[in-house]
């Protein structure tokens, strides 16, 4: 077994169903890239972290939309001595704790920024080009200049982050904001059932057509955490996941439904002329 980092990172990527970029930067930072296997055009949901540890290369690969990640190391497990394994586990644990503390700090900062951004914004214009293009109305969203602001809240109703929607449909999240398990609710408190969709336009469409409360989870990887948060908050209700009709969307929706005893509904384009 050689210590080729590119082979190790390729193997880790293959395990989560992505392909790594051709050149890797070993600086310990998170680098996002477009993965043609899983991303829609223009998206960069795949990411990697690579470090030079001196005696080996290591890091993590992951995918935001799929909500998965995998550690990798250029040295195989068999090459480590017992003492090295203990030391490696200690370092990994330390790094994990540090990362968690940093993440919590980022979340706290983002909550404050989200509050400020949301409060200084104006009610969204129903004639905003994105809303016109998607044919949906304003449901609890606001606007700052030409950018739509979609609030992202946790199950307790705390504003944790924002999604920024531009006129051309491009989307960005507030840096460092907590998204996992958080959502934008449309249609008020559910009585006996709720739908969960990926994007704002899909959730708004479903609510406008059916009148059913709908939650927007923002990406496929967040469907399951949102479904679990909603199940925790409303134990008795029926949860239906409105999947996007692509392999990632369907797989994530099925996983979310299975986790909460819900079901999946998939758009049908077979009868569309």
């Amino acid at each position, binding site marked *: 077994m050689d210590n080729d980092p590119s082979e190790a990172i390729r193997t880790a990527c293959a395990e989560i169903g992505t392909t790594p970029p051709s050149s890797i930067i070993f600086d310990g930072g998170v680098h996002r890239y477009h993965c043609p296997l899983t991303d829609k055009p223009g998206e960069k949901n795949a990411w990697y972290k690579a470090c030079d540890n001196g005696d080996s290369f290591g890091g993590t690969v992951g995918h935001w939309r799929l909500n998965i990640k995998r550690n990798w190391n250029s040295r195989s497990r068999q090459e480590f001595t017992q003492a090295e394994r203990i030391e490696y586990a200690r370092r990994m644990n330390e790094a994990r704790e540090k990362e968690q503390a940093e993440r919590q700090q980022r979340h706290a900062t983002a909550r404050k920024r989200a509050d400020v951004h949301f409060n200084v914004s104006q009610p969204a214009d129903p004639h905003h080009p994105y809303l016109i293009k998607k044919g949906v109305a304003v449901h609890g969203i606001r606007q700052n200049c030409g950018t739509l602001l979609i609030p992202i809240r946790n199950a307790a109703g705390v504003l944790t982050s924002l999604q920024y929607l531009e006129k051309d449909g491009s989307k960005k999240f507030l840096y460092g904001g907590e998204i996992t398990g958080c959502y934008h609710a449309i249609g008020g408190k559910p009585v006996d*059932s709720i739908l969960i969709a990926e994007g704002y336009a899909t959730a708004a469409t479903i609510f406008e057509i059916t009148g059913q409360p709908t939650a927007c989870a923002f990406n496929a990887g967040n469907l399951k955490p949102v479904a679990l948060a909603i199940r925790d908050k409303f134990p008795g209700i029926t949860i239906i996941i409105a999947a996007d009709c692509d392999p990632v969307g369907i797989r994530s929706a099925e996983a979310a439904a299975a986790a909460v005893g819900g079901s*999946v509904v998939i758009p049908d384009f077979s009868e569309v002329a």
Partner: protein
Amino acid sequence: MGADSDFNDQAKRGGKLAVAKKINTAIDAAKGLPFGQFIIKPDGVYMTTVDREGKPKEEIFFCTYLSPVGLARNIKGADYSILFEMKNPDGQLVQFLLSLESLHIGGGEVARIEYAKRGGSFGAGIRTKQAFADFVNSIMKNSKNLPRITLAERTGWVQLKGGK
């Protein structure tokens, strides 16, 4: 990734009515199809318990997905069976015919074995002996709207009872 992928796309391409129908059907199916004290949901059959005032208290998982497709009988109007649809452990929907006679052989054991042979399973702690027969009897009691199926011994035209 195709251009059309979500319900917003479907609403624009195929109309809002199609989306409403699709989603409302899914909601109805997810809420379950009640047969007496049993509710058939996409992930399985549940037994409802009631409190002292007769109000629904909780739903207990009874068995894996098992739903009646129709009520079947032979051309003489005898040998009644229920055509069931079930989900096997591989997640595939399969159909099987359960003879009502089997409910009365060995205290319903034959009927339960027919279901279990195809990969069906029961919830933990469920007293299946009585409950499975109760489930099938609930379906029979509420079978007015189930489609009728005639079982023929061979292909071709058959004379149904009553000359129809």
